């Protein structure tokens, strides 16, 4: 039987703020345990939360970018449950009046346009991190109280692939907005997924399960694939899926049951009395709306239209706001945007990837790249030599003209100079000349190669071909 899949996500995104959600402690990653803590984020007696207004702004900006409604009134609530990673044994979160309602993410998946609707976006504080040692456990509260934005989608995704594409598109948008570093290694983005299957033709959704705390997109993908297969197996063998919360074991590649619906917590939400409600006036929201940058989809389209680069290239370049900014700076300084896009897509992204760098710390300035492209286009350097120049600039910066001079990479376009080299190549390879005469055209290619070798790659290939052809014809 064929089964249909339904997937909904809750995405927790760590916001890019200097201080925590409710205190002045820093949010840096990787500090020694319990060094970014204070009475507030440790839940000491008498300590009180104070709102981080930047976190509100970043969340509302996200909501505005995703087309959410921004209610004029929003509030925070206490969500109670006991766990050692919870300093107060309640989490300050938002229950019935979140900062953002509705909205949608539009993206491409499997070559088709998709739209996943949001339920809401709310703001809450992160919990601490439990650490287990052979004879005891510890808690690191550095992360406790870091602002987390929770994005809840409608169950609008039909496959793990689509869920993955959604996450990538969402991540691009969040990065563009600058609201989060979206660093998956540092746990900046964590997902809970809800999924169910139902036989094709059945209207009513199947019983769902929830998989908690997936901190890589790959993890989301594999966990979903496994869990959906498991649900199908349960149905195929005549069983029923139990509504429950499951955990993904990435090492074993399986999900296992954590708690059933009956054991679900009663969080006993009630309004947080230590914080005033958030009341946003239209002017402030309007100001924030005006500050929203061009988003990935629009930029992709504009890059194609404005610079005439192919859709695929625009997609790769627009995926990262900084890369796209770089490209545009270089393209504007150049007459050949397409060549610039090729350099960015291939050499630049490859080298950055190899070194684990971002474009922000690349030493090749956009101006230098544009100049290099024009040196190639005007025949001053060959495209082969240009790669060496680019590599040199990537290592230590510098100006392409100077590098071409220093390295003696300028292309030789002086016909007499090339003629001399061609003559030398023919003298050194009489057999190839003879082969050509007997109709083996491949021999000509070999000779071109020899000329290039002798010129150390600097001979203008177009001239070499012309001159060689003429000389061979004269033989």
């Amino acid at each position: 039987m064929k089964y249909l899949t339904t997937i909904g996500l809750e995405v927790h995104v760590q916001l890019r703020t200097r201080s925590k959600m409710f205190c002045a402690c820093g949010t840096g990653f990787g500090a020694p345990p319990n060094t970014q803590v204070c009475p507030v984020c440790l839940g000491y007696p008498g300590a009180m939360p104070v709102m981080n207004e930047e976190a509100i702004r970043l969340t509302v900006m996200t909501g505005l970018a995703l087309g959410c409604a921004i209610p004029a009134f929003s509030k925070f609530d206490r969500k109670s449950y006991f766990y050692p990673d919870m300093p107060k044994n309640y989490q300050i979160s938002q229950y019935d009046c979140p900062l953002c309602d509705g909205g949608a993410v539009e993206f491409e998946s499997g070559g088709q346009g998709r739209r996943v609707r949001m339920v809401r976006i709310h703001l809450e504080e992160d919990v601490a991190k439990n650490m287990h040692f052979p004879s005891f456990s510890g808690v690191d509260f550095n992360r406790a109280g870091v602002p987390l934005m929770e994005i809840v989608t409608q169950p609008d995704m039909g496959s793990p692939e689509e869920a993955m594409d959604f996450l990538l598109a969402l991540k691009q948008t969040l990065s563009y907005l600058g609201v989060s570093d979206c660093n998956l290694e540092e746990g900046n983005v964590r997902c809970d997924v809800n999924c169910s299957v139902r036989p094709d033709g059945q209207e009513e959704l199947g019983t769902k399960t929830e998989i908690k705390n997936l901190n890589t997109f790959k993890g989301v993908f594999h966990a979903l694939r496994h869990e959906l297969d498991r649900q199908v197996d349960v149905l195929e063998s005549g069983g029923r899926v139990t509504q429950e919360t499951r955990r993904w074991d990435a090492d074993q590649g399986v999900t296992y049951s954590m708690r059933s619906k009956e054991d679900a917590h009663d969080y006993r939400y009630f309004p947080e009395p230590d914080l005033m409600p958030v009341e946003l006036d239209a002017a402030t929201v309007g100001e924030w709306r005006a500050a929203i940058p061009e988003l990935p989809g629009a930029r992709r389209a504009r890059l194609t239209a404005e610079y005439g680069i192919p859709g695929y290239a625009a997609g790769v370049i627009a995926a990262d706001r900084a890369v796209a900014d770089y490209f545009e700076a270089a393209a504007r300084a150049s007459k050949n945007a397409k060549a610039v896009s090729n350099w960015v897509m291939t050499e630049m992204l490859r080298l950055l990837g190899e070194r684990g760098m971002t474009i922000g710390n690349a030493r090749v300035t956009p101006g230098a790249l544009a100049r290099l492209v024009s040196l190639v286009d005007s025949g001053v350097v060959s495209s082969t030599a240009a790669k060496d120049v680019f590599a040199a600039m990537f290592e230590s910066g510098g100006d392409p003209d100077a590098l071409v001079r220093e390295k003696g990479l300028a292309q030789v376009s002086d016909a007499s100079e090339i003629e001399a080299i061609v003559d030398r190549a023919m003298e050194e390879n009489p057999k190839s000349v003879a082969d050509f005469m007997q109709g083996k055209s491949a021999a000509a290619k070999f000779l071109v190669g020899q000329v290039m070798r002798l010129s150390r790659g600097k001979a203008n290939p177009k001239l070499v071909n012309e001159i060689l052809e003429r000389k061979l014809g004269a033989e």
Partner: protein
Amino acid sequence: MNREAFQCLDLRSAAAGVVSGDFTSRELVEAMLAGIIERDPAIRAFVHVDADDALRQADAADARRGPGGGRLNGVPVAVKDVLNVAGQPCGCASRILEGYRAPYDATAVARLRREGAVVVGRTNMDEFAMGSTTENSVHGPTLNPWNHGRVPGGSSGGSAAAVASREALAALGSDTGGSVRQPASFCGCVGLKPSYGRISRYGLTAYASSLDQIGPLTTNVRDAALLLNIMSGRDPLDSTSVPDPAPCADDGWAAAGLKGMKLGLPREYFGAGLDPEVAWAVRAAADACAALGAELVEVALPHTEYAIAAYYIIATAEASANLARFDGVRYGRRADGASDPYDLYTRTRAEGFGAEVKRRIILGTYVLSSGYYEAYYRSAQKVRTLIRRDFERAFGQCDAMLAPVAPTAAYRLGETTDDPLKMYLGDILTVTANLAGICGLSVPCGLTDDGLPVGLQVLGPFLGEERVLRVGAAYETARGPFPEPHGGAA
């Protein structure tokens, strides 16, 4: 100056004496410590006194003696065990905070210190401020200085008893449902509950966050006004704190009398259940205010009868979350032998909390539970709104109100221990101010035939402290000096 003279100083005279060099802060603090050594064994108002530390603070105050030293430079004050003072224990009279030392100063304490005050010791209370008798304390009960067979009231009973017995010139308490005003009434001292948000709650161990307020207990109204002025004002660490500066006691207040003031007598506060002696004393005080020029009018607060129910739902709901942090993981007492986190919580909290605290946590957990929230918590919030409107309407007809603080004078020790509901009902005249967020002052206004003090409650609108203090100061001056407690057995 002899010891008794030191112990009878008001705050301004004490500060002035240090500034002028009439005496040193060390002499003053030594006199107060001597009073504690002499009298506290009989009433047990203090739970922690670090004499060396107090004298160190006094010496530091003497070292900065002069006009710039602060308005309370070298003046000792006591604080309720619920307030965080850096380096001191803050046990909230609970076993569960055994071993905890505060790493920071509460804002109210920091502001007193900024004016040079010396924190001389910590006073007893009902555990986590839950109670009206100061009997629910891990340290045992505090006794009423007027009669050792009576309770001092609560939950700030230690602070009230310390001030009444002149072991402290002034003390801080906290008032969630009457916990400053009622012990002030029971012990014959002045107690002020400021409007909600007037004094930052930062550093006050929370019982019910939407009701809690820090308040001073003093021997006279002007001292309460001075402390209010020092502690009040916007605090960036408490989002619910209000920016308006509070008034300071003005010498003109008492002299100006109460001409042109309309004082309301809420009908519902003089109804059944009010001890006739209390009623008589309060009416006599109201008449004294009329003699000072005030016009007395009857006003109505029709939703008063629902206040106790609403209060005990909201307070316990908030408490159930506020007290969840006491789990043995980060500080305080941790039970031995736990096998997993939940076992640790269960054991720690079973051992660490007293019966009244457990009762309120369970009640609060219940009223917030899924399926009961609407019926209890939501309804209580609606009642709260109605009570607030009652006051708004009534304050449209008067400038301030006069009422009793408690239906009776101080209870006998043990009288309410087995009947918590009786104790809860005794809060009827004070919880309304907390629910409405308004301010209230308790000023001694008489003694019962048994020689127990009775307090006059002056209620004012939100941020109406100036009016309340004016009425209190004028009445107090007209009343004349209040008798001193004589102590002794029941």
